[in-house]
């Protein structure tokens, strides 16, 4: 009886995982960080499967690995929820919508490009996508400020200026902050050791 319940709950999680990645992938225009903010809203705020910090870590890993960011993020989230099988389900959910949409469009390409209503809808949807990202960023930035550590708040502002105004690559920013994190860790260890000695 218990065993049966367990299988049912696993099936439920896998199904939710598939539905979530499928719908997110079907509605995500323009770049990996867009889908990441949608994933944050879905998995952290709606389904409450894991917390915000974990989502940010997942994003950093997805960004630094080769391959499309949405696929990378799906692999990690899937693994988190149900191991390799979970990864497989999440990737399937993420890959199917663009495959179906593009297969259809590649046949009707000329009509698609000339259609005014589609062009208008795609243009105005950007306003909605931007609103979603700003909503997610507001929450995330609030939490960074809540750490009350000048280092983290400064890193956030400097990274933003570097990437937005100076087009510094995301990879370089992540690697630099990784370096700063390691220095911070070594500094902490040094202080601990010194206070233990005295």
């Amino acid at each position, binding site marked *: 009886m218990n065993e049966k319940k367990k299988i049912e709950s696993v099936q439920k999680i896998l199904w939710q995982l598939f539905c979530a990645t499928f719908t*997110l*992938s079907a509605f995500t225009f323009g770049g990996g960080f867009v889908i990441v903010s949608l994933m944050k809203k879905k998995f952290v705020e709606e389904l409450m499967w894991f917390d915000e910090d974990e989502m940010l870590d997942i994003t950093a890993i997805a960004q630094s690995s080769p391959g499309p960011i949405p696929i990378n993020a799906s692999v990690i989230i899937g693994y988190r929820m149900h191991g390799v099988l979970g990864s497989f389900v999440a990737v399937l959910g993420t890959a199917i919508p663009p495959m179906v949409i593009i297969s259809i469009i590649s046949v009707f390409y000329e009509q698609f490009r000339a259609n005014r209503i589609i062009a*208008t809808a795609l243009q105005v949807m*950007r*306003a909605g996508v*931007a609103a979603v990202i700003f909503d997610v960023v507001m929450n*995330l*930035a609030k939490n960074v400020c809540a750490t009350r550590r000048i280092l983290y708040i400064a890193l956030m502002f400097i990274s933003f200026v570097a990437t937005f105004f100076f087009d510094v690559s995301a990879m370089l920013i992540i690697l630099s902050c990784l370096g700063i994190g390691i220095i*911070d*860790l070594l500094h902490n260890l040094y202080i601990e050791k010194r206070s233990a000695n005295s």
Partner: protein
Amino acid sequence: MNLIIKLFFSFIQVGLFSVGGGYAAIPLIQNQIVYTHQLMTMEEFTDLITIAEMTPGPISINSATFVGTRLAGIPGAIICTVGCIIPAFIICLTLAHFYYKYRSFSGVQTVLSALRPAVVALIASAGMSILLLGLFQADKNSIVFSDFRIVEFLLFLGAFFILRRFKVSAIKIIFGTGVVGTLIYTFLPIAL
């Protein structure tokens, strides 16, 4: 059959070497498909980029599917996409394994804490870029202020207000702005 195998290995390379998101993949695909194997002309390739950007989904998956469908039908689309995903799948699975194994260590937490503000900034920057693209229909480096679009701006403010005020899902908001915006442009005398 030969073509399918060629495509498969081309896209494994694309998947393996495109670090840092969709736009990194484009020159790689161009190199593999247009130059090395000459499976497409440059003109077809430009169309491909236009479509990949206009439609939802990751750009590299979109282009893999488009190239596959054009060259070898549905099986081609599946083979190209799978090829593009395999390297990411293996590498991310490995990284995820180590992340979940070591993430509870306090030292790892200290290092990760310095990474998180950077990720917030990267997401914010992507949001700014897409907002400017929506408001001025131009890339952030080539903005003309007289091109400002009031309809998109109001849609943005409305969507943002609804998101902050009520718990609405992202998909509903994006779809909603699409419908409302298209209706405004179709039935009101405003030029797009």
